[in-house]
């Protein structure tokens, strides 16, 4: 049997009377690139925050990297990487200092941090930027750097919340190569995005509408099921139907 790194059953999150996540269930396998799609306000970020241990579910259960999302948030945090929608490395620290800080937080020692920093900067071809302040870097570099830092402690799963917002197509392409690279090493990638071309790159995709998962499958399966030429068409049908049903 395939190893599941994320298993979610009947997850619900309510804010007062508003239901942000409405009874969703899904599984993600090791090394899979799982696309989490949906219109703005469909509940993607809320669901992702629960999986990262940043928010508690109202009801439902599940495990991430083998730990319960209800009671073992701090253990989950040891085994995941997270890159938020809002770029959030320390702008007043230099590149290597950000590596040092986050490496240190995850319990790496000085030597391990040095090795990691060197190899990751080399992989990003950002060796010359080592002493640059993060605030002075172009957005594309920052995003690549944030991804590397989310990976500094070799997590089992990495959560990417709209990682390529506002980035040019070439840099996005480049960024996805990094994601593939990570997935090929057995890291599970959980990614939300608004770019449908990126959805095509995913192994499997789920589309959320109004807090529910309306569709789940590989891009090819979804295109066939909804009779669309590309993911853009699939998304428009599903999200559009949701909007019409309101």
């Amino acid at each position, binding site marked *: 049997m395939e190893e599941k790194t994320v298993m979610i059953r009947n997850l619900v999150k309510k804010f007062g009377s508003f239901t942000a996540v409405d009874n969703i269930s899904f599984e993600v396998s090791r090394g899979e690139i799982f696309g989490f799609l949906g219109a703005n306000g469909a509940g993607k970020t809320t669901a992702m925050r629960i999986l990262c241990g940043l928010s508690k579910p109202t009801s439902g259960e599940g495990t991430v990297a083998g730990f319960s999302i209800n009671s073992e948030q701090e253990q989950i945090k040891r085994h995941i990487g997270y890159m*938020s929608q809002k770029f959030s490395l320390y702008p*007043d620290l230099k590149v290597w200092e950000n590596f040092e800080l986050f490496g240190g937080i995850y319990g790496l020692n000085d030597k391990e941090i040095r090795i990691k920093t060197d190899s990751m900067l080399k992989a990003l071809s950002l060796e010359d930027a080592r002493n640059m302040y993060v605030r002075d870097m172009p957005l594309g570099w920052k995003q690549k750097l944030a991804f590397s830092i989310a990976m500094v402690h070799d997590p089992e799963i990495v959560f990417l919340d709209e990682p390529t917002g506002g980035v040019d197509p070439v840099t996005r392409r480049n960024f996805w190569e990094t994601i593939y690279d990570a997935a090929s090493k057995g890291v599970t990638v959980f990614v939300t995005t608004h770019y449908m071309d990126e959805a095509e790159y995913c192994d499997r995709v789920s589309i959320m509408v109004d807090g529910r998962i309306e569709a789940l499958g590989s891009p090819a399966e979804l295109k066939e099921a909804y009779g669309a030429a590309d993911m853009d068409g699939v998304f428009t049908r599903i999200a559009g139907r949701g909007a019409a049903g309101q």
Partner: protein
Amino acid sequence: MWKYLVKKEFKQFLRDPGMPGMVLMFPFLIILVFPFATNMEIRNVRLVMVDNDHSDRSHLLMEKCASSGWFEVLDVNAAPESAQALMDRGRTDAILTIDNGFSQYLEDTRGGGGSVPVGIKVNTVNGTRGSIAGQYLNTCVTGFISDNMVSSSAAAMPGFDVSGSYRFNPYLDYKLYMIPGLIVIAITMMCGFLPALNIVSEKEKGTIEQINVTPVKKTAFIACKMVPYVAVAYFMVFTCLLLAYLVFGYSCRGSYFAIIVYTLAHILVMASFGLLVSNFSENTQQAMFVIWFFSMIFMLMSGVFTPIESMPQWAKTITYANPLRYFADAMRAIFLKGCGIRETWPDLACLLGIGSLTMTWAVLSYKKTA
């Protein structure tokens, strides 16, 4: 893990465009500028004298007043109307009128019969200043009269020579009294407010979320944030004490150990208070406003600037909840009277009491998981 977090906080602190400069400037302001500005001694009372007697004696009295050092004499021979006009326009604080018959009064052998032909008029728009100006003038005039009275009965009156002995601050130097209080204010600003703004700014930038998603313990994160501010607080306290010694020659009479302990206790209280504010604030503006609101209360009701003893009972009651009250009280006792922890322990107990309350609340309300 701690090492890296502390390192981060120090780097960020030192790279801040304003912070290090502010920390260096503060002790100089506290010791070299503020003690003069917060001086409540009444000096330079503006005085106009009206002489209707025109005698040697009246001239001598005026000279005595002028040379007392309390007054700034504007006019020694004013017409009564112009003197009054000066007071009406707020140009003078006091008018001394020596009436016709002053020298006769002094030579009167019956001694002290009738009223003294001297009039004192004081502008009491500022009550404190006015009443003290009146007292100064009174002291001058009665002193002069008792020295110059030729009457035998006055000489026969038993004279009380009351000489006070001033303890702890023998020269009644207001600056000496204010310096420990001002140090308290400085530490409060530095350690209560800056960490709060620091945390709120991490919230705004979103970096705190990146920390929340790591296994860092919230207490570790907060404790590491405090380290630079504790260092800064001690830097400020000891620079202030050193400057006070070098510039004014004041030295702390009590134990430095007690100062170290009290400073730490106060940082604990103020930092947890600041943290509490940051937990309930979404942005810097909100946090600034809440902090400003409380800082006014903390400062004005601390006894640093005005004596708590002269506040009404309800105001006194409020001061019991103010951590500054205890810190200021202890610092003054240590600095001026040479006390140690043994003599001031109730202050320490209250500080720690308030501190453990705010700290518990702050840690409980800081949530990594919403």
